[in-house]
């Protein structure tokens, strides 16, 4: 399903241009450089984008591996049967007009699709979905012609198509690399539990993120996610939590239940990583992808800025970690490296100003890491301040900011100490007159990501994401004991 060599797209129109799901998906897969062969289908025939449009699926001259179905809802069952007869093992049904309408016709059609899967053995994603994005094969969503082709450890599954494209786009700049992303829509056949099991077994997937609204079978979901989360981190963003007490209940227990309480309890019970927004889900996925699979109880924080100390300590503690104060001797050693006055190496380590040279920061990271209690280091870099340096020198900010050198220095410190460094790159300069700063910051992010160093926008985001990793592996280790 993810690496089809032959792909039928049913519902491509010769004069449709880039309008319509079928045409859109065809163009998007082309733009992504999908290497397999595409066979468009439409009863009217013709050509599109240099390809012959077959009038019937039966006319396609090869065996099919996979099909994209983008025809009117009532024509979907016949299209599925035809694709199956041509050998397709699976199909994604992009079309809507099924159970989501709540109409008798829609529900009946969806039931018919389910019946076809049982009867013929074809596996279906959808209907009413965006389908599959697989960077390695180049299969993509219609609105995703320019998603990344770089593969990685993160799988994402989502009922919502909008959430799946948003997450894929977010991942592209944030540094997430995907094994597969699946939007399964109504989930007439394949849905959360079975897809979770698949990703649990998928050797290309190391981190699983999912967005769910409702589930079909609570018991199956519970057992599946519990088993999968015992092996790989499963990050869950649950949408649509409702308050308790909607039904008439007598007992206090029942009045205090309801999905807003029960869902989080169940997710804790199965050791899933719970997040409350798409950004938190992306940040947690990034931390799980790039950090070693272990706990990080003691951390050091290195940076500058007014409320740094308080913010870092509070955020660390809230996420189950601590900032051990450095002993006097080490503190003095580090302070000797930093500009005086203004610096302080108690942990958090205040570096006094944002222009401390990368090679000095590298030394500070090396020395701080010599404390056995420190298991991970967070460095806050206020690179946007280089704009004023640039202005003074009459040069663009991108030219005067030493982000490449800094990325090298940090990478070197990670290599030498074996202790991960997480970078925080805040940017309060985002207005129209600071696009140069925004661009420089994104280039800096890329430089760090290329060296395997995760980058977050705020210290709170970073520590929350690290905290998820810390907690997950803490509990996983407890289980093994």
């Amino acid at each position, binding site marked *: 399903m993810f690496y089809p060599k032959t792909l039928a797209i049913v519902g491509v129109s010769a004069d449709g241009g880039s309008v319509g799901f079928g045409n859109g998906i065809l163009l998007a897969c082309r733009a992504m450089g999908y290497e397999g062969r595409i066979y468009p289908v439409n009863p009217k025939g013709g050509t599109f984008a240099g390809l012959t449009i077959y009038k019937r699926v039966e006319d396609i001259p090869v065996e099919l591996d996979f099909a994209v179905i983008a025809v009117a809802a009532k024509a979907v069952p016949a299209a599925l049967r035809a694709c199956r007869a041509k050998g397709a093992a699976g199909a994604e049904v992009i079309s809507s007009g099924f159970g989501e309408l709540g109409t008798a016709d829609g529900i009946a059609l969806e039931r018919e699709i389910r019946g076809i899967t049982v009867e013929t053995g074809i596996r279906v994603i959808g209907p009413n979905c965006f389908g599959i994005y697989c960077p390695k094969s180049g299969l993509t969503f219609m609105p995703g012609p320019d998603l990344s082709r770089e593969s990685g450890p993160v799988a994402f599954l989502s009922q919502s198509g909008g959430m799946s494209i948003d997450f894929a786009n977010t991942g592209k700049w944030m540094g997430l690399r995907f094994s597969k992303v699946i939007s399964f829509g109504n989930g007439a056949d394949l849905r959360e539990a079975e897809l979770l099991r698949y990703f649990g077994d998928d050797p290309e997937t190391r981190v699983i993120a999912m967005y769910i609204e*409702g*589930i079909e079978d*609570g*018991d199956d*979901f*519970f057992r599946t996610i519990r088993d999968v989360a015992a092996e790989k981190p499963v990050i869950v963003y649950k949408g649509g939590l409702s308050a308790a007490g909607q039904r008439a*209940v*007598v*007992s*206090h*227990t*029942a009045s*205090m*239940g309801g*999905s807003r*309480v*029960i869902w989080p*309890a*169940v997710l*804790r*019970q199965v050791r899933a990583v719970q997040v409350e927004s798409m950004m938190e889900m992306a940040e947690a996925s990034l931390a799980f992808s790039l950090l070693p699979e272990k706990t990080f109880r003691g951390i050091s924080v290195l940076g500058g800025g007014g409320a740094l100390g308080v913010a870092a300590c509070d955020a660390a503690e809230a996420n189950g970690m601590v900032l051990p104060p450095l002993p006097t001797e080490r503190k003095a050693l580090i302070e000797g490296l930093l500009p005086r006055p203004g610096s302080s190496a108690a942990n958090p380590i205040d570096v006094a100003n944002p222009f401390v040279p990368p090679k000095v920061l590298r030394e500070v990271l090396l020395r701080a890491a010599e404390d056995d209690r420190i298991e991970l280091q967070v460095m806050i870099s206020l690179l946007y301040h280089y704009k004023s340096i640039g202005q003074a020198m009459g040069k663009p900010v991108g030219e005067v900011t030493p982000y490449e050198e800094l990325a090298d220095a940090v990478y070197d410190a990670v290599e030498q100490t074996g202790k991960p460094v997480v970078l925080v790159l805040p940017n309060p300069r985002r207005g129209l007159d600071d696009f140069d700063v925004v661009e420089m910051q994104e280039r800096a992010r890329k430089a760090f990501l290329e060296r395997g160093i995760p980058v977050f926008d705020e210290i709170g985001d970073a520590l929350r994401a690290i905290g998820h990793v810390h907690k997950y592996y803490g509990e996983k280790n407890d289980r093994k004991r």
Partner: protein
Amino acid sequence: MTGNDKDSAMRIIDTVRGEGRNTLSEYEAKRVLESYGIPVTREMLVGEKSGVVEAAAKIGYPLVMKGCSPEIAHKTERGLIRVDIRNEAEAVRAFEEIVKGMDGGKGAVLVQEMIRGRRELVMGLTRDDQFGPCVMFGLGGIFTEILRDISFRRAPLEKKDALEMMAEIKGHGILDAVRGMEAADKDILADMLIRVGRIGVEIDSVQEIDLNPVILTGSRPVVVDALIILK
């Protein structure tokens, strides 16, 4: 605690069903709990005034006496509870008052040992639309509704789930040795939670359970009041 007898619990439930009811009386609910090995107050159900003195002597003073009828889910609000009854005269008077308060409705008076303890907990069971039977633990008595300091886990529970439920409430310190009180026996508490979950898993017709309060007498938890609702 060894009891785990679904059959005797089912006999009680079938009787209740046979009478066209879906709420168990406190007495019936306690028998269901007892058949699952959950520690409850020692108690006797007394229908006639002539039986009060003997029952009181058997249970031993001081006593609690409660109006017991499936129609009464929340007894305190109805003024149908008398506590700290210390002699025969008080017991007989309490019986008369309670019966009068029950408006001549069906039911009897529960003569119950008085459990002393300042720490009140709650346990319960609800059926979630998506996950089925879920067990609750939290601070009991009047604090249940005010603080809502509670935790849930889906049944069946493993011991670690039960222990986590206890650790998860904000007021978990109440289970430790505080102010001269012994630490709660967490093994027994965990076992009780597991068994409440088992009732939910094994008996489909049980829709909701409230054990409130569960009082810690020394280190030992005892279910003092119980409500079971059937589907």
